[in-house]
């Protein structure tokens, strides 16, 4: 039993931290602030992504292992690094698991160099939680597939240059058994995008329409009709959210600093017993969320991750995030609804943007209700 990283991993963590601390400053920081003013919380800078790719950090998962990839992801979340990473990591894992040697050679390098950036084309207007009911079709035509259909609520659809698209390739079998995954170039003829502004979190969400989009058969990832299973496995990675653990740790630290430096009636807010108690409570929850997520990371180094581990990690983390947003607003009171750029806004309006983004946390990537189903049925073995 060991509740810390190895010395080598600690060195890597320190190196990443030093790099982000140094590089995320000056012009880049100003650019990030401008993105935040435009309500882009998870900004991605292609130049910065390329710099990280050159250091080999986007491929840590393949060159070193899942723990190292996670150390990088937590660091980039903590420092709010504008890097395309999480979705690329998910698709990389699918290709590594199910792709041919040629596909690995062709795509993995591009995913870890920042050349290919990804949005996840799973959800449709008619299916989210019941994802296997998706109706987007892909029909083989020679050495191409022709895709028709629509994806919705797709994060990063306005910025990513590729989508991993789940499409039905067989209608004669039960719904889980006729789905395939395609890596689609967003510049392909027939792809059209419509922005779908959301209340918060991300300004690059939208819908994407596929009208007779022709995709090379080479871009079919894994076996035809087995996409659902790859997708389910990839959830193990999608639901490991150490990047968001880093973001939450940062938020707590900023709130601690804020309450120590802010005085009301000549007394720092940090003397208020309510504030001390509620921040300690959130800190404990963030620690549990961190442990849940690193338990999944640890399990992934040993074999298939029990599905309920990642459901617990992601659901508990996201619900904690909502409570943390509420706590930030309670601490700031009347000041908390002030937006970034406003006179009197504390912490650059982060309480406002965090709180406004919060409802999405327990929906995106699997609702809390679906996660609890997974925990109950797969984790506790309860009957369906």
């Amino acid at each position, binding site marked *: 039993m060991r509740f810390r990283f190895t010395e080598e991993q600690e060195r890597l963590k320190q190196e990443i931290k030093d790099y982000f601390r140094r590089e995320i400053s000056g012009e880049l920081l100003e650019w990030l602030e401008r993105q935040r003013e435009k309500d882009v919380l998870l900004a991605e800078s292609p130049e910065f992504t390329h710099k990280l790719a050159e250091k080999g950090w986007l491929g840590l998962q393949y060159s070193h292992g899942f723990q190292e990839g996670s150390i990088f992801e937590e660091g980039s979340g903590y420092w709010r690094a504008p890097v395309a990473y999480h979705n690329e990591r998910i698709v990389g894992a699918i290709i590594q698991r199910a792709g041919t040697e040629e596909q690995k050679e062709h795509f993995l390098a591009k995913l870890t160099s920042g050349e290919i950036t990804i949005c996840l084309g799973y959800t449709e207007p008619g299916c989210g939680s019941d994802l296997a009911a998706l109706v987007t079709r892909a029909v083989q035509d020679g050495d191409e597939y022709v895709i028709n259909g629509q994806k919705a609520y797709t994060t990063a659809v306005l910025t990513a240059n590729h989508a991993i698209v789940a499409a039905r390739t067989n209608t004669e079998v039960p719904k889980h058994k006729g789905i395939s995954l395609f890596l689609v170039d967003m510049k392909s003829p027939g792809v059209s995008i419509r922005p779908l502004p959301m209340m918060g979190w991300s300004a690059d969400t939208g819908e994407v329409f596929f009208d007779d989009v022709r995709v090379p058969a080479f871009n079919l990832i894994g076996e035809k009709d087995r996409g659902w299973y790859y997708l389910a496995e990839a959830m193990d990675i999608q639901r490991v959210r150490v990047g968001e653990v880093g973001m939450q740790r940062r938020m707590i630290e900023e709130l601690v600093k804020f309450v120590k430096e802010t005085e009301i009636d000549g007394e720092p807010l940090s003397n208020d017993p309510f504030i001390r108690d509620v921040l300690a409570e959130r*800190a*404990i929850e963030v620690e549990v969320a961190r442990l849940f997520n690193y338990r999944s*990371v640890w399990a992934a180094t040993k074999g298939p991750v029990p599905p309920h581990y990642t459901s617990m990690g992601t659901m508990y983390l996201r619900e904690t995030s909502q409570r943390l947003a509420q706590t930030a607003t309670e601490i700031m009171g009347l000041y908390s609804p002030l937006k970034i750029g406003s006179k009197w806004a504390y912490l650059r309006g982060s309480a406002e943007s965090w709180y406004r983004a919060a409802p999405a946390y327990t929906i995106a990537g699997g609702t809390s209700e679906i996660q609890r189903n997974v925990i109950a049925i797969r984790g506790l073995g309860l009957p369906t």
Partner: protein
Amino acid sequence: MDLDFSEEQVMFRTMARDFMVKECPSTLVRELEESEEGYSPQLWRRIADLGWLGLTFPEEYGGAGGDFLDLAILYDEMGRAIFPSPHLATVVLGGHTILECGTEEQKQELLPKIARGDLLLSLALTEPSARYEPIAIATKASAQGEEYVINGSKLFVPNANIADYLVCVARTGDGATPEEGITLFLVDAHTPGIACTPLKTISEIGHDKQCEVTFKDVRVPKKNILGKLNQGWAPLAKIINQATVALCAEMVGGAQAVLEMSVEYSKERVAFGRPIGSFQSLQHKMANMLIEVDGAWLLTYQAAWMIGEGTPCAKQVAMAKAWTSNAYRRVTADAIQIHGAYGFCSEVDTTLYYRRAKAVEFALGDPRFQRRIVAREMGL
């Protein structure tokens, strides 16, 4: 990060669990609840023979030389079975204090006896103010020749009714801070002037059995001071940390047991033509219980591992106790809800765990107290 137990630890856990299942059925727990002692002297002897009393003592003092993780595993299993014993009071609060700050002579004399099961101890710490802070120590010890004379009142002292010795926390002087001027005394529990009154409480087994202990002109030889005069708080804080994690491990075991009971029951109990465990309202409740239990497991073993490694962990210990106390209380209440009226019957084990969870929630500091420590450690 590595969350696996070593092979030896897995073997030890299996052995402890088998012992508890065989020797400590809940019927025995209920019998012992009715007893004055609140534990079984026969089973105490048995676990002494197994080496579980001296588990963490070095071999030269009759111990097994195990580390703190071994102790956590043992408490996990004792908690699962609600094993009623004065282990926490005798071994951790008493024995570990002697190990931490006793003289070589005190260690040689007392630790082997504790390990053999011949000596029961407890820690007389809290007072009617019911606080685990140095400022709350009002009991006074004044020097008179070769002795100290102790006067004061201790409350919520676990297992004092059966203890041979008490480690009494008393004020011997005034310092610049409340920590200064506190001294630990090893007191023969049968010294004239000591009066012990067991308290009627929600759970009266093992260390839940609590007493009021009054000291009226109790004379203690100077050589019975444990550690340094006026500097008793620092070693005591360390022992409180250890005992807190042991308690957390015990709660983890109990919480896991009631969750398993709930899952099994909900698979078998049929209502509206289906097992009740197939209803989402119950599934989601049990998913929440698993969050509570696994969170408790991770925080507790993290703290236990850090104690074993000797790294500072006041924050992690406080986090573990704050979370685990709440988790145990909520999980035991949910378990009764899932079992319905049946789960509320005294003869059903859910009620044993429910009462126990309330008793340990406050022992060694309740969640609010623990969060005060967390806030302090966060720099607030």
